[in-house]
């Protein structure tokens, strides 16, 4: 077998990777067996008895995907200040979640987001529209995760991306199908620990190396440890302008676009069904608020480190390769070159690597995704640290994939089968349906992971826009505006999500024109990533206008709104 051969010839990094990935996978499977689901309530909301700390950790792991772990620092590394949109956008949403959504949805006390939309807007149509939006958002997102699993496997275990995706599918299948939300919650707690440790260790190492400061958050604002007394950021600004890039701390995006993207990401975060549903799992309203705080604290540990990693990696990379002879590049350069993620073409035939902003003279292309994965190698860290990063990347991708798969299976078994097509289904029947839909969802996700339609990567970032354009306004108005009725909410959601989809097809995928339209044609100078903000405003405006010309919601719905605004008495609402 190829694998045994690999064992004989592989280096230390690979051995360490097998060991660390093996241990963490065994841990996840053990937890899944210990915490399997016995009822639909276990399956959908982990029995509703998760502690705020455990829920906070699970939410953080659920939230931090392969994109946060692998790609984000790389994107910031190449974008400088422009990368701030992800930092603020993906954390600021939790403030909205904690203050405007989580406590009330917990008090409402059912299983899914379409549950809330369907009940609050007393209509099957509203429920079905919500299910459609939830499936659209979750599927676009999960395909990206499976791909992330495949990439990590293929680089560190040297198997095909396809094999990597299949291994990841089997693991997720095992614990999501067996354990449901309960199994997922406790595996995510373990995955949080793995991924944060894996992210912090190399960051701390490199911070000490470069600045002598063990705290990366402070390190990237400190002076260099080479005794020159120059601040690291000043040096990087200098290097960037020297090579023709814009200053690292400045960025190139327009103010309005930065504003719009940040808002779309914040609101989208607060509207993502797999994040919202986590707050259905705690005991009390009080716990929902607290666990939102804990989740954000745990997320911010990684998110404040990422910009530091970005600066370290960028400086290190420029210093290692810029104007250096190609013949003398370090080993990691060759290794990544083999994967095609680093590409060098000696345009002027001088044997040196010219890495500059000017496209015609630039000779080096580096894929953003490898900055975090290659960073420990670039900084010459020990082998076990490099392997640890692989285990962390897998933890991040798997935990997010599992959370999304659960939303998909609950949408099918609970929102569609139980509440729309076959209300007479028994508890046992629904649990079987839930497990079967989880199996189906894993297979579809795996298929997209192996055969990604060309536009997956583009669409993942837009899942936020879709969530912002559909759920956020409907939920906010449902809680804070008693007069809001089904006609308003449904037309708002439909207009919002349609606008977002059309803008995306035109300006991101270029489906309506011979070629992708230029930036200058964007509405108000807002990119497709930021258009969620516009679509959300459209949703609000349409909902409020339509509401004015249609009937008030029935009295019992208005009573329900008053009921969810009061935090006490959760117990009664939980049972169906």
């Amino acid at each position: 077998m190829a694998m045994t051969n690999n064992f004989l010839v592989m280096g230390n990094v690979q051995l360490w990777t097998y060991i660390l990935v093996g241990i963490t996978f065994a841990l996840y499977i053990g937890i899944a067996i210990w915490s399997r689901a016995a009822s639909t309530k276990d399956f959908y909301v982990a029995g509703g008895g998760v502690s705020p700390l455990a829920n906070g950790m699970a939410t953080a792991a659920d939230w931090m995907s392969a994109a946060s772990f692998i790609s984000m620092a790389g994107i910031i590394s190449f974008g400088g200040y422009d990368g701030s949109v992800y930092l603020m956008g993906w954390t600021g949403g939790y403030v909205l979640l904690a203050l405007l959504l989580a406590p009330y949805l917990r008090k409402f006390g059912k299983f899914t987001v379409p549950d809330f939309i369907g009940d609050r807007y007393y209509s099957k149509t509203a429920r079905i529209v919500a299910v459609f939006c939830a499936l659209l958002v979750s599927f676009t997102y999960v395909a990206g995760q499976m791909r992330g699993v495949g990439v990590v496997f293929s680089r560190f275990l040297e198997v095909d991306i396809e094999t990597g995706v299949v291994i990841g599918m089997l693991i997720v299948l095992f614990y999501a199908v067996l354990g449901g939300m309960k199994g997922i919650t406790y595996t995510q707690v373990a995955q949080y620990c793995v991924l944060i440790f894996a992210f912090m260790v190399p960051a701390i190492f490199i911070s000490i190396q470069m600045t002598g400061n063990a705290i990366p958050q402070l390190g990237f604002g400190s002076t260099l440890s080479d005794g020159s007394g120059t601040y690291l950021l000043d040096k990087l600004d200098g290097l960037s302008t020297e090579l023709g890039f814009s200053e690292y701390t400045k960025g190139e995006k327009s103010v309005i676009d930065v504003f719009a993207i940040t808002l779309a990401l914040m609101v989208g975060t607060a509207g993502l069904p797999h994040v919202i549903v986590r707050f259905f799992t705690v005991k009390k309203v009080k716990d929902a608020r607290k666990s939102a705080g804990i989740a954000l604290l745990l997320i911010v540990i990684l998110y404040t480190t990422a910009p530091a990693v970005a600066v370290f990696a960028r400086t290190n990379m420029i210093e290692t390769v810029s104007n250096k002879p190609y013949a003398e590049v370090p080993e990691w350069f060759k290794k990544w070159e083999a994967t095609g993620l680093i590409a060098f073409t000696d345009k002027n035939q001088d044997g040196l690597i010219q890495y500059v902003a000017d496209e015609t003279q630039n000779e080096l292309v580096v894929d953003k995704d490898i900055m975090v994965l290659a960073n420990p190698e670039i900084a010459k860290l020990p082998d076990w640290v490099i392997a640890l990063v692989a285990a962390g990347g897998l933890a991040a991708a798997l935990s997010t994939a599992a959370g999304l798969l659960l939303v998909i299976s609950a949408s099918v078994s609970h929102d569609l089968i139980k509440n729309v097509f076959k209300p007479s289904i028994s508890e046992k029947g629904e649990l079987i349906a839930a497990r079967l839909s989880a199996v189906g969802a894993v297979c579809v996700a795996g298929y997209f992971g192996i055969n990604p339609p060309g536009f997956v990567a583009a669409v993942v970032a837009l899942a936020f826009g879709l969530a912002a354009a559909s759920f956020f306004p409907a939920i906010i108005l449902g809680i804070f505006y008693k007069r809001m009725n089904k006609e308003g909410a449904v037309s708002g959601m439909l207009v919002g999500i349609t606008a977002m989809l059309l803008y995306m097809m035109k300006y991101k995928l270029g489906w309506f024109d011979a070629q992708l339209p230029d930036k200058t044609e964007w509405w108000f100078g807002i990119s497709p990533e930021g258009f969620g903000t516009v679509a959300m405003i459209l949703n609000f405006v349409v909902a409020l206008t339509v509401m004015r010309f249609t009937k008030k919601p029935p009295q019992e719905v208005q009573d329900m709104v008053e009921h969810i605004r009061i935090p006490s008495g959760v117990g009664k609402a939980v049972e169906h």
Partner: protein
Amino acid sequence: MKQQAVAYWKANIRYVLILLLIWVLVSYGAGILFKEQLDTIKLGGFKLGFWFAQQGSMYVFVILIFVYVRLMNKLDKKYGYDE
């Protein structure tokens, strides 16, 4: 009962609005709109606007949620909604 619920809701909305105002000021204000101006001030090696965008705003977000948790726990107690 009804009056009490209305008063509780009003107090809650007031807290939320104040906290969200701070949320807007640190991110959209300091991190984006006034970034240029703040960048003239330096905090160690950081330009202040850049620091708010990539560090400061996130710390403030965490603090905001915990302040909200405290305020609401107190409010729940005052109105007898805690359990």
